[in-house]
């Protein structure tokens, strides 16, 4: 019973957050001319950004490919974790104790 209540609480909080996001995005779309957030962009809409591809099904291959992208994500996470650990280590390092007498 307690577990069900906990799950319900998690879901309620998630729905509240999700609802807020949804409301914010919907409000911002209706605040403008209403087309920016509604339309899917066309292939030539972002000529300066070469990486953009429209969200078509053609982007996704059926088969499983070499997991280069997963390794990229893993490397990014490792770099972030290493940087964070080193920063905390650097700032958490205790200053050398001063001699009490000469």
């Amino acid at each position, binding site marked *: 019973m307690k577990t069900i209540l906990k799950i319900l609480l998690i879901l309620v909080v998630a729905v509240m957050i999700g609802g807020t996001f949804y409301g914010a995005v919907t409000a911002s779309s209706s605040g403008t001319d209403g087309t920016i957030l509604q339309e899917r962009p066309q292939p030539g809409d972002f000529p300066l950004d070469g990486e953009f591809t429209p*969200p078509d099904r053609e982007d*996704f291959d059926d088969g499983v490919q*070499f997991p*280069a992208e997963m390794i990229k994500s893993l490397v990014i996470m*490792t770099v972030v974790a290493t940087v964070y650990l080193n920063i905390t280590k650097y700032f958490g390092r205790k200053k050398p104790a001063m001699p009490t007498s000469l």
Partner: protein
Amino acid sequence: MTTEVIKNTPVQTKTKLWLDVVLFIAFLITMEPHPSGLAIHEWLSLAMVLTMIVHLLLSWDWITEISRRFLGKLGTQNRINYILNWLLFFDGTLLIVSGVLISEVALPAMGIQLPARFAWRRLHDLSANLGLLMLGIHTALHWSWIVNTVNRYVLKPILGLFSSKQKKDAVI
């Protein structure tokens, strides 16, 4: 860290470890939908929601304890960890909501069709990238727990198997 405040039972710790390993691998797979395909990306993400709920349930005591003590006396690590976990929760919720709203496989398979909105795709990408960075810090914050738990529940039992075999061989 988690262990500074709450002591879990060995069964809870082991469950947490394997659940986190599965979540971590699933996150890496879902992070890039191109290699795995859109169907795997969407269904695996939906399955991850359930796994995340179990992950939160297993850390429930820590969450309630830190929530209670947050405004009082609390270590910096725990405070950072708590704030980061909330940010991860916000980010994860945005990731799921935006993912559901731009779904092209899972929701249509359930007979639900939603109007396409490009803003949700951009928010989905943004929250996924933010999630990747935050998960890196989340992992760093729990690094000592990961190392200790893997040592205790994975490496030591495996090494113990080898050493007991060697002892048996020596007796024979």
